[in-house]
């Protein structure tokens, strides 16, 4: 009998509402967040299987409010004794640290939430055979290897199943379940001293909620051949020229541009200084909201946890706040930051439902969710046609920005020169650099819905202790005027 991709290990059932009764009385207010997350990795390289693994994270975080301060205790021992010990530790720590609390916490910052969230998937893990799926991955690596100069052909699939329950002593009872997938198809080409990487949209961009319908194999196989051929073309290509030029970024690079130069600086916990010792502060000040013209009037950016299929959609954040779509930047004007109810109370500013944790063993903090640049009116051909000499770049490969989110430098896998309104030669090692606000003011055209693509990344890191979290970014192609671009060199 064929074995499917689905995994059903034996666990003892955990009921968070029953568990809440075990620990009532430990603190002025209590919450339990249970998380189970199964992460499947299936990969192939150069015609052979590489990795077959499933990691299962399963445990609870207990939040205890005492004397206006919340402390957290995480445990994977889900017995009555295990939870009682964790609740006791959390309450004790809250009591010990309350005299040094940074701000007053209250149950009002954690209002009762009731509801559930479950995403629909057309093709479940149960309905696809492991052998068949593995064969497809291996075949994809063969399609990528269009020449002996392709030294590495990689096909990687990730499936994540999450179950989250959140209950609190003031009446919250939330359950959320999602299936997500990620995929990476990439080739490394080598000839003499030259090496070039090319992949489908970059190494981590292709991710989202939903089932195995994301693996449209007939389309993917021909895309793999294209990627292999483009890797070869990069071997023969000239370096991206140095200079100030017009720049068109494809959506698979826009995702990174949005992430680093809009998402992170707008996080309210960064603005409050919580991240100063690690990820950094922000150039945004609290009084910039409603006043700072962040960029060109063509710029409209939303926080949208309601977009079906995007990687970070949900109905409630990990503090129980109801998730809604909100404008962050409208017509280029900065309107709202990315902060949950705690940060909103600390700053006296509106925010969004983005109080999120990476897993059961980390406390929630302000994170990005889905941060999207809304489509404009320009067609891609018209944007290219408006450029006399410039560069078109695709697929992120390098990212770096300062700790206040001003000076950035990003690199892409693949570029084409634009001459007299036409795409011409392939260029290798394309990079560009700039400063956030002037860069967004140079936004001259925003692509229409036809150019709009939905991507994301599983690897947004911040927080102490550190947390890696999933975010979604959707964007059209965009044209920026007079940007410093450059290539590689010895």
């Amino acid at each position: 009998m064929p074995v499917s991709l689905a995994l059903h290990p034996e666990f003892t059932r955990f009921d968070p509402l029953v568990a809440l009764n075990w620990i009532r009385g430990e603190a002025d207010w209590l919450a339990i967040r249970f998380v189970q997350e199964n992460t499947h990795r299936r990969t192939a390289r150069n015609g052979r299987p590489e990795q077959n693994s499933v990691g299962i994270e399963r445990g609870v975080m207990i939040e205890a409010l005492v004397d206006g301060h919340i402390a957290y205790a995480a445990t994977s021992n889900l017995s009555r004794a295990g939870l009682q010990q964790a609740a006791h530790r959390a309450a004790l720590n809250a009591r010990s640290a309350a005299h040094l609390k940074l701000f007053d916490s209250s149950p009002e910052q954690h209002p009762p939430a009731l509801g559930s969230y479950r995403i629909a998937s057309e093709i479940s893990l149960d309905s696809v055979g492991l052998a068949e799926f593995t064969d497809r991955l291996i075949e994809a690596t063969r399609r990528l290897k269009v020449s002996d100069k392709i030294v590495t052909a990689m096909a990687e699939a990730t499936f994540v199943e999450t179950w989250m329950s959140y209950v609190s002593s003031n009446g919250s009872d939330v359950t959320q379940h999602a299936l997500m997938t990620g995929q990476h198809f990439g080739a490394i080409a080598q000839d003499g001293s030259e090496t070039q990487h090319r992949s489908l949209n970059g190494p981590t961009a292709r991710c989202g909620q939903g089932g195995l319908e994301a693996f449209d194999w007939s389309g993917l196989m021909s895309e793999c051949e294209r990627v292999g051929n483009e890797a070869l073309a990069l071997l023969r290509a000239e370096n991206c020229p140095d200079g100030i030029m017009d720049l068109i970024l494809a959506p698979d690079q826009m995702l990174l541009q949005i992430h680093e130069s809009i998402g992170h600086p707008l996080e309210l916990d960064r603005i409050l200084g919580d991240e100063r010792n690690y990820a950094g502060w922000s150039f945004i000040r609290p009084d910039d909201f409603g006043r700072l013209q962040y960029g060109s009037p063509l710029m409209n950016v939303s926080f949208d946890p309601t977009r079906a299929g995007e990687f970070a959609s949900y109905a409630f954040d990990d503090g129980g706040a109801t998730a809604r779509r909100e404008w962050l930047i409208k017509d280029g004007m900065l309107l709202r930051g990315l902060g949950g109810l705690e940060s909103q109370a600390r700053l006296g500013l509106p925010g969004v439902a983005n109080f999120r944790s990476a897993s059961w063993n980390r406390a929630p903090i302000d994170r990005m969710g889905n941060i999207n640049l809304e489509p404009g009116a320009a067609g891609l051909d018209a944007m290219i046609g408006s450029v006399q000499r410039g560069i078109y770049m695709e697929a992120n490969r390098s990212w770096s920005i300062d700790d206040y989110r001003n000076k950035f430098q990003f690199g892409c896998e693949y570029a084409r020169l634009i001459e007299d309104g036409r795409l011409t030669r392939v260029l290798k090692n394309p990079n560009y650099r700039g400063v956030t606000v002037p860069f967004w003011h140079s936004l001259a055209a925003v692509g229409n819905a036809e150019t709009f693509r939905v991507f994301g990344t599983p690897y947004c890191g911040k927080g102490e202790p550190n947390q890696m979290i999933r975010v979604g970014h959707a964007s059209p192609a965009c044209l920026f005027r007079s940007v410093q671009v450059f290539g590689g060199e010895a």
Partner: protein
Amino acid sequence: MSFQRNTLRHFDTLSVACFESLAEGEQLTLNLAAEEQMYVRFNNSGVRQSTDVKQARLSLRFQSVGRRIVYTFDSTGEDRQDAATALSLLTRARDEVKHLPEDPFLIPPENQGHSQLHHAGRLPQLEALLGQVTKHTASADFTGLYAGGPQLRAIRNSEGLRHVFSTESFFLDYSLFTVNGSGENKAVKGLYAGTEWEVAGFEQSVRDSLKQLDLLKRDSRELSPGHYRVFFAPAAVEALLSLFSWGGVGYGAWKKGDSALKHLIEGERQLSPLFSLEENFNAGLTPRFNSQGEIAPERLSVIEHGVVRNLLISSRTAREYGVSGNGAESGEGLRSPEMATGELDDAAILASLGTGIYISNLHYLNWSDLVNARITGMTRYACFWVENGEIVSPIRDLRFDESLYRVFGSELESITKTASVLMETDTYSQRALGGSTVPGMLVREFRFTL
């Protein structure tokens, strides 16, 4: 010791139950990564969040008929429950291997002996920690993370191998902030870490940081992009060296076309004869055994006087490319790097720099041209403009874009006589083990671009 003892007892019980369930031709390796940590996050000299974490991650590597499946799950600590979970996963693994193609590069588990190493520590309770932190940092805007508690790594396999490593340690990774004469936020980074929390040691760390903070109160200097003479303090050198573990010195990365040091490995380029780098487990910050149970050499020269001596080779890579492995982990990164010291006296650093930039820390490094080992990143924290051997002013942070072949090669002028041990502060998913031993270094010319 009760956490380590109880967790290890449970691990042994579970291992035996799993091994007893194996049929002829089946092999199994169990890995354990466990910690009981107190994490306290500070901001504005107050407590932002404190999180106690008790976790034990069990990994089952099942091998049979030339196939391997790996399952990892969070242990409940209850023998019966975890055995039921583990045995259900092993049943599934037996089904899976029948449906996968053979993996020609698998290494069968072997009995590579037994070992057990424990580093005892003395760590503060929360109330004492908070009292000392508030007392000694009262004059500054303090922010940071304390992490402390026992960590445990263990491995057993069905062939009889058993290795255990445990340690009780802490770090306080912190920043002190001020506003300088130009009205700009400026900060200094400090790291106090070890196995024995000593009030005097913490006090000294803060005192050293406060001295630099005083210098940061001066007006800032804005420097134009261009080439500058620079001194990198150990934390900045550690950031640069971390890139050698991002594909750089792994044999597999080189063969797969993913190494930034291809030209160095193939003898087309060289680094400075002053630069030597080795893997050195003497500091005892991390176990020598890897997740396959193989023991790495206590010391392994990686780069000697600018020339590659050994790349890190995992057993899987060794099997694939027909070479000998050297106990590297599958990612083939440095686990306990040590850079050789040089001849530069600490007292002579500023005089030797003369006129240039003193860089305490770097931020957010990444490749800008992998095959040419070109990197970009930012200056961060206490970075100063120095004239004629005297600190003049803090700088406004600069972006750089430069090749490792110049930084550790043609432009490397001298290396300090002393090195710092910098404990690993990574806490993604779990607190990492390990650390780096790094000196400071003087570089003749370094390129800033923005």
